[in-house]
């Protein structure tokens, strides 16, 4: 399938008073046309930094995208574009939905104008045309009484409604890529479900590719076609949603899956991954997860594992996949899932 966006060897550092924080350490992935790629990982794993760098929205004063990093979109390397050129990409070809709808709309501007703004800027719509289109968009995202509400200010809307408006802003110019940075995290569960349904429906309607950042695996199962698991500024495992949920290979993914609460599980305690995220001021020499990994081997502390191929769509960076590695028993929850996977390929939805 054709790739619309390719990230190659992305390295990003932040310069702080304490020193250089290597937040992103060689990230590679591609986004295929029409798919939803979920990026999951704990706080500080580099999910948001990766996506902000695609939009070139990182603060120039203290962040640095290293030489050799490539973000290829439409034949251009976005890292090398000038500010002016990048302005033409933002909001038009690539747009973004942010985490907190309560703070991501301008409180002193009517919502109609906020939706119309990118249309006037990128599509050279007249003010009237742009407002008509804004009204259409508000209907599309299911905002009640759009004719009157288009003239209201953000504080007159609830959180869920505001996120619908933010989605309308993001979709205004029919972007080829939509980046959703934890779009449901700040919403309560029922509204979350509504917003996820809305995004799935809209994706079919306007044929866009979505990068969906989240730390909620339940959401991933619901929306994603493929999943990339990030840890310590790297992607440690990538695969289709079934492969990640039912045949995970990386011990960190095992940890994530085991720590998901499950209705039919009969254990009393919820599994947690011990320890805390790695210090990216001085990244560990070997596998960044080694110190928290009970399956770690000596080599994990010395050498970084490369990406091992599991299938054409499934890769994982763990020495456990090396031919010489000993057989290990994954956690029980993972074993159960793997059993299901082998017994019946494609249990969840129809992927690809």
């Amino acid at each position, binding site marked *: 399938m054709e790739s619309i966006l390719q990230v190659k060897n992305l390295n990003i550092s932040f310069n702080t008073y304490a020193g250089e924080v290597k937040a992103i350490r060689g990230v590679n992935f591609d986004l295929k046309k029409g798919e939803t790629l979920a990026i999951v990982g704990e706080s500080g794993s580099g999910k948001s930094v990766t996506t902000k760098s695609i939009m070139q929205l990182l603060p120039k004063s203290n962040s640095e995208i290293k030489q050799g990093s490539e973000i290829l979109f439409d034949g251009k390397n976005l890292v090398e574009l000038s500010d002016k050129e990048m302005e033409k990409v933002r909001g038009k070809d690539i747009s973004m939905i942010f985490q*907190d709808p309560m703070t*991501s709309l301008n409180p002193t501007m009517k919502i109609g104008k906020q939706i119309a703004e990118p249309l006037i*800027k990128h599509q050279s719509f007249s003010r009237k045309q742009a407002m008509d289109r804004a009204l259409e968009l508000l209907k599309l995202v299911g905002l009640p009484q759009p004719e009157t509400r288009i003239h209201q200010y953000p504080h007159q809307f609830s959180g869920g409604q505001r996120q619908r408006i933010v989605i309308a802003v993001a979709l205004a110019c029919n972007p080829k890529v939509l980046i959703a940075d934890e779009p449901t995290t700040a919403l309560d569960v029922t509204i979350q479900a509504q917003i996820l349904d809305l995004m799935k429906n809209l994706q079919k309607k306007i044929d866009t590719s979505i990068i969906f950042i989240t730390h909620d695996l339940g959401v991933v199962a619901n929306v994603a076609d493929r999943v990339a698991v990030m840890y310590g500024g790297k992607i440690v495992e990538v695969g289709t949603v079934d492969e990640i949920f039912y045949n995970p290979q990386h011990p960190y993914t095992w940890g994530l899956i085991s720590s998901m609460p499950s209705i039919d599980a009969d254990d009393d305690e919820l599994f947690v991954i011990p320890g805390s995220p790695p210090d990216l001021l001085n990244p560990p020499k070997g596998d960044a997860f080694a110190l928290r990994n009970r399956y770690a081997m000596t080599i994990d502390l010395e050498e970084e594992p490369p990406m091992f191929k599991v299938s054409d769509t499934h890769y994982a960076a763990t020495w456990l996949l090396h031919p010489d590695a000993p057989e290990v028993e994954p956690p029980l929850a993972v074993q159960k899932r793997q059993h299901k996977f082998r017994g019946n390929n494609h249990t969840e939805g129809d992927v690809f």
Partner: protein
Amino acid sequence: MGKYLLQRILFMLLTLFIIISITFFLMKLIPGSPFAAAAKLSESQRAIMEAKYGLDQPLPIQYFRYMANVIQGDLGISFQFSNTPVTDLISGRIGPSAMLGLQAMIFGTIFGIFLGVIGALKQNTWIDSGSTLIAVLGKSIPSFVFAALLQYFIAVKLGWLPVAFWRGWEYSILPTIALSIFPISIAARFMRTEMIEVLSSDYIVLARAKGASSFEVAFKHALRNALIPVVTVLGPLAVSLMTGSLVVEKIFAIPGLGEQFVTSINVLDYPVIMGTTILFAALFIFIVLVVDVLYSIIDPRIRLSGGEN
């Protein structure tokens, strides 16, 4: 909105009444008599003068008489310029003061906001440091020192502008600059701080994500949100212009209210002191109302209570 304004105006009148009362009694605490300075008057002549102006009456009687007159719009007759009503004195002098104050306010806030915005946009560059330097100097140098420096360098040494007096618009330039240095520094500091805060907020990132240029981000999205605290200090600033003008008018020999006010206090011209105070107080109260209305115009989240919204 209408109901709210009505309520506010009633409270303004009450405030004004309290200010007038307090000023009246405070003024009477200043020792001496307005006619004591005129040495030529004999004891009995002075008694006649005091009786003529009602100054021989007990204080409460004087107060009630004065208040009754004020309510009817009569501010009394000046002692120093015999037979001239205070209202005439004030209206004859208010022109230059109002013009100076207004010019200084407009120039000061616009230039100050501009300095603050570019300071925030070019944070930690020499432009930012320059804007900070101007603001710190403006706040630490008193306006009369600045006025004297302007007179010496621009008027005397360079001869570009007149040193003093009030004979046309070019005479107002130096006093306006001297007066506006304080509003400039205040507006610049507040604007810079608030602008930096606003520029790092989520909706600014979203505006950039929509493809807005840094100019559009700063002026279409950030400026309006950053204005609120600046508007808040505009009220006290306006007062500082009024009081600052007392000294500046004196230095530039401008026939304004301030100059007259200072002279009146020196010779205990009670009616003129009272009249000018009432005017200043009324202006101040009015500005506070204007600031509150400005809030609701700038920020739609602020609705004036008492209205229908």
